[in-house]
């Protein structure tokens, strides 16, 4: 099932939470929805899952509009809201049974589905506990279980790993990856590494507008500027090496990283590479290279660069 978001706009008072956002998610794709807090991620997800009505624009899921056929869309969506609200006074089995009934799963299939969910989400040891007695990580699993119980084609997860410890984060990520092989998944987060690890495609949203739409690779390329090398050269005087590096034709600037260890940061001119020139320079002067690492711009930096203004 494809999700098509068309010119979605939602205002809260005078403030536009989402401003004319359009994008498309193909069936089977795992989309990472990124953005700083308050960027409009949650609002967009709420609109897709038929919780709020957009002021303008429309969302179509599998060809059905959220305005005309919310009941069909809701059946095909598994939604894990932000902060994972659950009925705290119910135990896991009762809660999952309630959700299964609401989804209209036939009665004879319900016990089987519940057991499947308990197994998939790793809730075996806790299944008779009250939800209020569970730790946050287990509650998150219950949240995932309720989103998955009716075997939806589309899964919308709003910050599924907030508040989890590193082990739990890894487990939940694995789970999402496994699910993502068969289903369309939209996942929001403000942690880049998470999105990079789990998603096929990244959508960065800021102040209600889409700033980037592409893969992690595209994103790097788009923000990549000049070549930057971390370079270690031994076998000569630091200052001589520095001078020589600066005199290379392709080099734009040179900085010291560590004078004692003779480490430099070499930035090349636009669309040039200085690797060969550096190597030739070393051969001519009998220097030797102790380190040569191309510095990749981190996704975090790109993210900051794109969302800071």
């Amino acid at each position, binding site marked *: 099932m494809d999700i098509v978001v068309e010119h979605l706009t939602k205002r809260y008072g005078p403030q536009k939470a989402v401003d004319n956002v359009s994008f498309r998610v193909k069936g089977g794709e795992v989309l990472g929805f990124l953005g700083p807090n308050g960027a409009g991620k949650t609002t967009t997800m*709420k609109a897709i*899952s*038929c*919780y*709020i*009505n957009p002021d303008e624009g429309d969302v179509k899921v599998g060809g059905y509009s959220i305005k005309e056929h919310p*009941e069909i869309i*809701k*059946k095909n*969506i598994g*939604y894990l*809201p932000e*902060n994972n*609200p*659950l*009925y*705290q*006074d*119910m135990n896991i089995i*009762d809660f999952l049974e*309630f*959700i299964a*009934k*609401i*989804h*209209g799963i036939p009665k004879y299939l319900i016990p089987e589905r519940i057991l499947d969910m308990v197994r998939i989400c790793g809730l075996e040891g806790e299944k008779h506990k009250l939800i209020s007695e569970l730790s946050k990580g287990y509650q998150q699993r219950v949240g995932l279980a*309720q989103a998955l119980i009716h075997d939806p084609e589309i899964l919308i997860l709003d910050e599924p790993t907030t508040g989890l410890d590193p082990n739990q984060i890894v487990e939940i990520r694995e789970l999402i990856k496994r699910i993502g092989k068969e289903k369309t998944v939209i996942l929001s987060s403000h942690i880049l590494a998470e999105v990079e690890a789990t998603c096929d495609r990244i959508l960065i949203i800021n102040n209600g507008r889409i700033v980037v739409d592409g893969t992690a690779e595209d994103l790097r390329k788009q923000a990549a500027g000049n070549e930057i090398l971390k370079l270690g050269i031994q076998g000569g005087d630091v200052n001589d090496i520095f001078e020589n590096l600066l005199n290379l034709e392709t080099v734009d600037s040179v900085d010291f990283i560590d004078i004692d260890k003779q480490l430099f940061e070499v930035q090349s001119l636009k669309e040039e590479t200085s690797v060969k020139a550096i190597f030739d320079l070393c051969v001519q002067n009998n220097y030797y290279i102790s380190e040569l690492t191309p510095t990749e711009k981190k996704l975090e930096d790109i993210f900051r660069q794109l969302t800071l203004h």
Partner: protein
Amino acid sequence: MKQILHIAYRELNSFFDSLTAYVLIVIFLGFSGFFTWIYGADVFFLGQASLDTFFTVAYWSLFIFIPALTMRSIAGELKAGTLELLLTKPVSDWQLILGKFLSTFFLIGIALTPTLFYYFTLWGIGPVDHSAIVLGYLGLLLMSMVYISIGLLTSCLFSNPIVASLTAMSIGIFFHIIFDVLAANFVGFTGSVFSFLSLSTHFESITRGVVDTKDLIYFFSISFFCLYSSKMILSNRNLQV
């Protein structure tokens, strides 16, 4: 329809899990039993096989209990965030409102059921006007219906349960006594309007043993108006967080 029952059933269970239901039933039966059989104008004092005293006590105690039961129904879900969970499942706004309505209505029904023993006991000790008693129960249920709807509406309007409960009670008190008092103080058209608005007029006419369509229309139209408004508020998602 199934969705409504699932929601109502879950809600009813949570009333029992949180002890609310037990407290309600115990207090309700305690009060009504005490005043019907032991104290004041009780059955033995009146010397008649009638449950009028019980209906008066129930009339008042339900008026006080219902806002306390409904105050959390929407406001609580909104605060806990579970409203979002429910409304993103295949549940329409109407189904949610009606489910909430039915859960409280069933609970009132459960609280009233043991009082049927009063009726059977009475039957054993004297000649009973059966239709008056049946209609008395009908009156109580219709009245509960109105107050539950008002309670649901205020629960949609205010996120603070206490505010919701107090507002429901203050709206309720108009129907319960103020319109009646006003009706007594005005003559002519104004008086009859207030008299028509007063819930006690209609309740009394039913418990006297007369079911007029006018009375039924009264109870159903207020309930429908409140439930419809609640649904509209819920649909607009203009809920106060």
